[in-house]
């Protein structure tokens, strides 16, 4: 079975006064229908740019984006518009991604109008009412404005809007990061229910490894524009191979007191800028295992066990 969405050697570079910024630097990924790929990394690792480049909200510098077999990176604007209804996006901050001057029902109806999905006024109202019900928004909010609702409900509007055009693929860019924990769980459960019902594929972008575990079948860890490890969700958590993945896992504050006693060493330093990066491992400056082998040559993703890819020359060496 071929993947619903695939990228091959996808690159997005930005020219800056300091040099070329390699935001996304040769990413290969594949997402099957009805599945979720989690994309994890810290600020500045290129995860959001990856999502936006796949949807062609920014133009890729190089590489392919295959949707249902055809390379949409080369589509004309017109052809792209024709398939946009299949590819949607949910944003991190629900308030800044909703038009403050439109009511909840207007916001949800907008994709229906833009893509000319429904004919008459009544049909549209029915559709909007149905979408609101699907995402768990009470009817009484139909004429409210976004600022009148709380964060969780706002995010539900964003989800309803993304669902309006019956998409096959949704990029969820940190959809729960701005929400309280109890509300986070409600939204995550909603997204999982919707996936089961409508067989939507998600690319779930987050900095929070524990969130992505529940929702993804497969997880990809990014560092400075590159994928450094990719594996099934269970495999990645049970057997993280890249030192960066291990550090990310170790850094999550676990809500239990046992974890407090055995504190693992934290990684030093911070993510640098991916401006004109030198060949070699980009994590090496922060890595406790780094040695001369890590510089000089780009480290490629290698298979280590079934379906588990890792880009580390020290692969398998324990820290």
């Amino acid at each position, binding site marked *: 079975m071929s993947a619903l969405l695939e990228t091959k050697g996808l690159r997005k570079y930005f020219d800056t006064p300091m040099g070329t910024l390699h935001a996304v630097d040769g990413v290969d990924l594949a997402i099957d229908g009805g599945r979720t790929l989690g994309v994890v990394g810290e600020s500045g690792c290129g995860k959001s740019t990856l999502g936006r480049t796949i949807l062609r909200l920014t133009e890729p510098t190089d590489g392919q984006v295959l949707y249902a077999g055809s390379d949409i990176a080369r589509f004309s604007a017109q052809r792209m518009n024709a398939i946009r209804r299949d590819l949607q996006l949910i944003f991190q901050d629900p308030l800044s991604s909703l038009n403050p001057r439109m009511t909840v029902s207007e916001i949800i109806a907008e994709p229906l109008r833009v893509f000319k999905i429904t004919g008459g006024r009544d049909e549209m109202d029915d559709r909007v009412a149905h979408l609101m019900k699907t995402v768990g928004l009470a009817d009484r909010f139909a004429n409210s404005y976004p600022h009148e609702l709380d964060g969780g409900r706002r995010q539900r509007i964003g989800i309803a809007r993304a669902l309006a055009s019956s998409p096959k693929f949704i990029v969820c860019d940190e959809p729960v990061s701005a929400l309280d924990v109890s509300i986070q*769980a409600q939204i995550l459960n909603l997204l999982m229910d919707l996936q089961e019902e409508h067989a939507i594929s998600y690319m779930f972008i987050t900095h929070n490894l524990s969130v992505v575990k529940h929702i993804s079948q497969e997880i990809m860890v990014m560092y400075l524009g590159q994928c450094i490890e990719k594996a099934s969700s269970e495999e990645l958590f049970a057997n993280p191979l890249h030192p960066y993945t291990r550090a990310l896992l170790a850094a999550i504050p676990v809500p239990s007191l046992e974890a407090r006693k055995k504190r693992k060493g934290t990684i030093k330093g911070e993510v640098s800028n991916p401006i004109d990066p030198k060949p070699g491992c980009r994590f090496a400056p922060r890595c406790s295992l780094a040695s001369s082998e890590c510089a000089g040559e780009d480290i490629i993703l290698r298979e280590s066990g079934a379906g588990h890819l890792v880009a580390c020359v020290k692969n398998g060496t324990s820290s």
Partner: protein
Amino acid sequence: MNVNLLEIEDLRVIYKTDEDTIYAVNGVDMSVKNGETMGLVGETGAGKTTTALAIMKLLPERTGFIKSGRITLDGIDITRATEHEMEAIRGNTVSMIFQDPMTSLNPTITVGRQIAEVLQLHEKSKSSSEMARSVDEMMELVGIPSHRKNEYPHQFSGGMKQRIVIAIALACKPKLLIADEPTTALDVTIQDQVLEMMNDLKERLGTSMILITHDLGVVAQTCDTVAIMYAGEIIERGRVEEVFDTQIRHPYTSGLFGSIPNIKVTARRLNPIDGLMPDPASPPDGCGFYERCPKKMEMCGKKPPLFPTEGNGHAIRCWLHGDCARRGDGS
């Protein structure tokens, strides 16, 4: 040193707007001992930040009011202190750091001068060379090389900026540091670094701390005691060992633990708490958590549960637990 540095008794804070009165903090009792770190946990709108602002006496003028209650900090009743007195207390006895380091630094002044500013205000007797030495010291203390003191905030990363904010807050060696979500805006690996540094500083300087957070994981790693707030009340408090290593919890606390995606557990679905917090403009008569509680009983909707005002043991504000359950039967 078992003296209470901070004692809050029956604190009530309201915000007055044109249409409504918002009951933000509804009778909070809590205490922080010398050298201790207390985690103040709760969701958006629970009243955590309002409580902190009341301690700092920085509630918005004209809209925010301390309606009743007493806040005793290092022997002084803050609620009666004049603005002039507060100016000496802030920075010296208590300082506060905010969630977003980007907005709490002045973008047009070098970080070194921003640290010096606090010293100039509070330790006027210091000579300029002493002052410069203190600035260097503070920067090294938070792990930033002191030669970067002539740089501006935008030249630092988010984690570094938060370190500078912490340096400013600690410059006058306050007895109490209130940290309002200090690591929420940071990446996990940076959060880890900053928390470790704060733990280390706390031990070296003996500062007491109130750590406001929504992350129970952060509490588990850094705090000695914890207070859980909901709808303007503390609904559970105790030492972290008591609250984390037990199954006897307030239903809301259980809900919070159930909502956290746990990397150790493989459950696919999470168990969120249904519904939302009550509207603070019209607080309910009974228990604030009644509407969302999976274990609610008839009486919960009518009568607010009791809560011990004294002592530091594990206490739960719920009709199902401890003293409350016993006293509830009698009355």
